[in-house]
């Protein structure tokens, strides 16, 4: 394996007495899409900030392309294209002006033609003379992406590029991320949506409460935990009784839905029907699904990805 393009070792980062990263290590290979998956407050933004040279870790080091961020942050910043979680551009400038100025900050000077070409990729050409603050949320998000790659970086860091976007706009961003990847760029993105991590990322790190709890390809993460299938049904039955059904490893309620982890779904389902018949309840909406990253997260951290804080 070649040398990782991003190499973060034993990072500890704190805001006052609050420890946001507790001994985090991470490597990203050249040309991959790497996802940081974790709930609110997990430390994703802080981890990116250490890589971006915006936050000085109290311990540990980050190397980008072999250069230590703490030693020469100007050189490491030069290699990066960045989109911060809070879109923070100068909103009294037009779309084209913003692309021009952010490229110039990297000493990349774009011609008007080059700016148009870049904006075309993000479907922003008609908006080139519109002030940034007059754009819709989705357009602003696309502008932030255009600005992030204005300097033609080899490494692109995207902090929640699709949060607060509707499904359609979200897919458009996914397409852009895939394009950037096809051009050979390395991409690191954060998300708290497991379907996004599954759809986009070659490898992911699951991060929770300032620690990376697992890191691998999505399918390996799911396979390694040897989770059985998930049987879902809408039914009201006491949990202890469900847990003692044959082949059931675990069971829980999410809302009205009963979720059972089972090694032999057919056996469990038959037993569930019998149990329901005995207690006079009815079963509706039975569904069998493969385990996903959400289940992995739950198994590893003991709490659900979407509800934790």
């Amino acid at each position, binding site marked *: 394996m070649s040398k990782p393009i991003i190499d973060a070792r034993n990072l500890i980062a704190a805001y006052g007495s609050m420890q946001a990263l507790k001994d985090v290590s991470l490597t990203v290979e050249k040309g991959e899409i790497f996802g940081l998956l974790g709930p609110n407050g997990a430390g994703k933004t802080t981890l990116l900030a250490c890589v*971006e*040279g*915006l936050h000085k870790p109290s311990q540990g080091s980050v190397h980008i392309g072999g250069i230590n961020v703490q030693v020469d942050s*100007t*050189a490491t*910043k*030069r290699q*990066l294209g*960045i989109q*911060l979680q*809070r879109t*923070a*551009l*100068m*909103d*009294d*400038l037009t779309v084209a*002006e913003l692309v*021009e*100025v*952010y490229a*110039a*900050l*990297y*000493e990349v*000077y774009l011609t008007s033609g080059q700016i148009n070409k870049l904006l075309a990729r993000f479907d922003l050409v008609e908006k080139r003379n519109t*002030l940034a603050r007059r754009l819709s949320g989705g357009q602003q998000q696309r502008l932030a992406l255009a600005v992030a790659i204005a300097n033609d970086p080899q490494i692109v860091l995207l902090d929640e590029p699709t949060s607060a976007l509707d499904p359609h706009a979200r897919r458009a961003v996914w397409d852009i991320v895939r394009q950037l990847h096809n051009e050979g760029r390395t991409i690191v993105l954060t998300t708290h949506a497991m379907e996004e991590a599954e759809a986009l990322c070659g490898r992911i790190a699951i991060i929770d409460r300032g620690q990376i709890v697992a890191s691998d390809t999505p399918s390996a993460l799911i396979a390694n935990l040897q989770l059985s299938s998930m049987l879902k049904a809408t039914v009201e039955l006491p949990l202890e009784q469900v847990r003692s059904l044959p082949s059931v490893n675990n069971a829980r309620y999410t809302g009205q839905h009963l979720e059972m982890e089972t090694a032999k779904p057919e056996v469990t389902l038959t037993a569930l029907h019998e149990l329901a018949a005995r207690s006079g309840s009815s079963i509706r909406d039975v569904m069998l699904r493969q385990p996903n990253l959400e289940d992995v997260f739950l198994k590893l951290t003991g709490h659900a990805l979407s509800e934790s804080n």
Partner: protein
Amino acid sequence: MKRFLILTKAMTLMHLRNGYVLFWNFVFPVLLMLIYGVVMSQYMDYMTPGVIVLNALSFGLVSSSTMMLEMREKSVLRRLQATPLPAGQLIGSYLVVNVIIGVLQSTLIILAGVLLYDVPVTATSLLLAYPMILAGLLAFMALGGIISGMVTKSGTATAIGMTIYFLLMFISDLVFPLDMLPNWLRNIVPYLPAYPVVQLVRSSLLETALDPKWLMHLLLLGIYGISATFIAAKLFRWEPKA
């Protein structure tokens, strides 16, 4: 250099497109001259340098410091920090933009004085007065830099800046002569930052001469400017939260 120019152009555009900034920076100073012209029409020679300095004072303590704070509040500074732009170039560009605005304001006030109230101004007196105005602007902006480094919200900075501005405005020989003040205050005022500036600007603009105590005034202003710059640099923060 090209990077610096593009950034400076962007920052200029950003501020000129803001109607609020335009009004307070360019319309308000002229309105001020009109108002003073109504209430103190026979003193406009004395008043014009006073208005220049009080405007520079409010610009340095309030407008320019809020400009920086708003960029910090909206995380624009944070985004700039993520680029390889050296901090010195950012500050330099910000200074250039603000000095241009500040000098333009003073020019508008002088124009109003000359055109509306026949304030006697010559080419030589202007040549002498502009460096003094510039020195004042820079010192006041450095003081404003301390305020923006100390507070978190631009609203707080405006409140603090305005308070200092109003206090200094009334006692610094800008719009009321010093002999209207009680004795004890009259002895302190010459050591406050606005007084030396208005002496320098008034003598050079109206008499085409340096104030007899010019060296002492410039020295005092230099001490204010340099120490304030040093403190402001120490307090400078990129990120919005403390």
